[in-house]
């Protein structure tokens, strides 16, 4: 009983920080997906330079722990900007650095997710689109993407949920999202009530993850009629 009261109390303290979690996650998911799409495209392109560049990028980023990524962005980028563009970005809101770091981190796995999903859609689909006069982009956007999307969805959800839990990265440079807030609550209680605090945190994340799962299931259901897989 005591515990439940505490958990509810902590929920109340954590929830305001959901703003930061959401802003940071949603921006990095959107930006990271776009970047990932570009990378997947580059990996399939004719240009050897683009292909090699994309491969190296994906390999390096996927191998980079988030704490290193945030330091590279937070410390490296201002140096880079002032050296090359003579712009001082030291004063930027620290959240921007977090978003950039997460975008980079997110883009690499997502590009692989997209590459494999794209590969599972028949090339004939693209050709048919072109032949009814759609532009390549329209064909991609309206025909191939929706089909690749269902294939990519479960994996995409995996990555999104992983991203949302990257609170350690956010907190490393002092941006207070839910995970950071939880750590600070524990600290301010002199290390006490950790179990209850993390329980409250886990509850929030669980709800988010359930919502994401629900979304995935809905989309997949709407697709069930359109494909004949081993399940059907």
């Amino acid at each position, binding site marked *: 009983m005591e515990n439940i009261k505490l958990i509810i109390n902590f929920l109340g303290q954590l929830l305001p920080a959901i703003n930061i979690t959401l802003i940071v996650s949603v921006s990095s998911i959107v930006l990271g997906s776009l970047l990932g799409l570009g990378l997947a495209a580059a990996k399939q392109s004719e240009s050897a330079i683009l292909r090699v560049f994309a491969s190296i990028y994906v390999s390096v980023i996927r191998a980079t722990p988030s704490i290193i990524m945030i*330091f590279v962005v*937070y*410390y490296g980028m201002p140096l880079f900007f*002032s050296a090359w563009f003579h712009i001082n970005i030291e004063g930027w809101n620290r959240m921007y650095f977090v978003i950039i770091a997460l975008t980079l981190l997110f883009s690499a796995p997502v590009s692989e997710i997209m590459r494999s999903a794209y590969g599972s859609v028949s090339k004939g689909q693209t050709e048919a689109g072109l032949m009814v006069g759609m532009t390549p982009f329209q064909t991609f956007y309206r025909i191939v993407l929706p089909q690749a999307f269902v294939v990519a969805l479960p994996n995409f959800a995996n990555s999104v949920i992983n991203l949302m839990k990257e609170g350690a990265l956010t907190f490393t*440079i002092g941006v*207070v999202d839910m995970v950071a807030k939880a750590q600070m609550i524990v600290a301010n209680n002199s*290390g006490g009530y*950790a179990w209850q605090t993390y329980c409250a945190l886990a509850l929030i994340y669980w709800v988010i993850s359930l919502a994401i799962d629900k979304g995935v299931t809905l989309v997949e259901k709407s697709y069930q009629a359109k494909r004949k897989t081993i399940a059907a």
Partner: protein
Amino acid sequence: GNHGSNKAQSSGKASSNKPTVIKVAYATTNFPITYQNSKKQGDGYDVAVMREVDKLLPQYKFDYVGTSDDDVLIGVKSDKYQVGVKNVFYTADRAKTYLYPKNYLGVSDSGFVVRTKDKDKFGGLAKLANNKGKLVPIAPQNGQYAVIADYNKTHNPKIDLGSADTFVVSDALKWVNEGRYDAFFAIRPMYEANVEKKNGANADLKGKLTYVTLGGIKTYPLFNKDQKALAAAYDKAIKKVIDSGKAAQLSEKYFGQDNFKLLNKPFK
């Protein structure tokens, strides 16, 4: 080329009427030494003392940035932040990386939490070593880790020093109580908040556990290597803050006792 540092230094020396802005990084998870209060402002003993120092230095204006332990260290090293506070102890190795001021900023009441019944067996560095007690692993970035490591350098038998990332305090207390470990290196306010206080997280362990003070350890702010002028200014100011008794007052406020007194006692 780092603009920030050059500017800070040159204008600091010129000491025009506009004060130089100094970024002071503090770790937000070191209650009650450095933390963020409910108004989202920097707070804690170290921060409060730095505010006192700032008052005495009209040529500087301290700006407090709350962040993680890691970032405090890397930030100060790279001069993103000029000063960092996070309950830092002195070691010779660290003094090669950072600029330590001559004067310390506070004293930390460090000790072991042990089972009350085993107080005489494990309640001290030598006791723990001699009785082969198990010490809860310490996060290496924590100053306490160095204290034990230093002890081991000069003593035999040695304490079995294990490392682990920062773990949850209330769990560590439980572990000691149930015998998973024999001693937990902690600071007094942490122990008191959890065990002694009426609605502390481990209030149920009251009586079963005891805190044994080992002694007071001096804590310092860390300066970036290039901030010699700032460090010198700090040294003068902190002396005044301590001499005036202001620091002792703050110690009472944040730690519940005057930790400076511990310096007169031997370290056990």
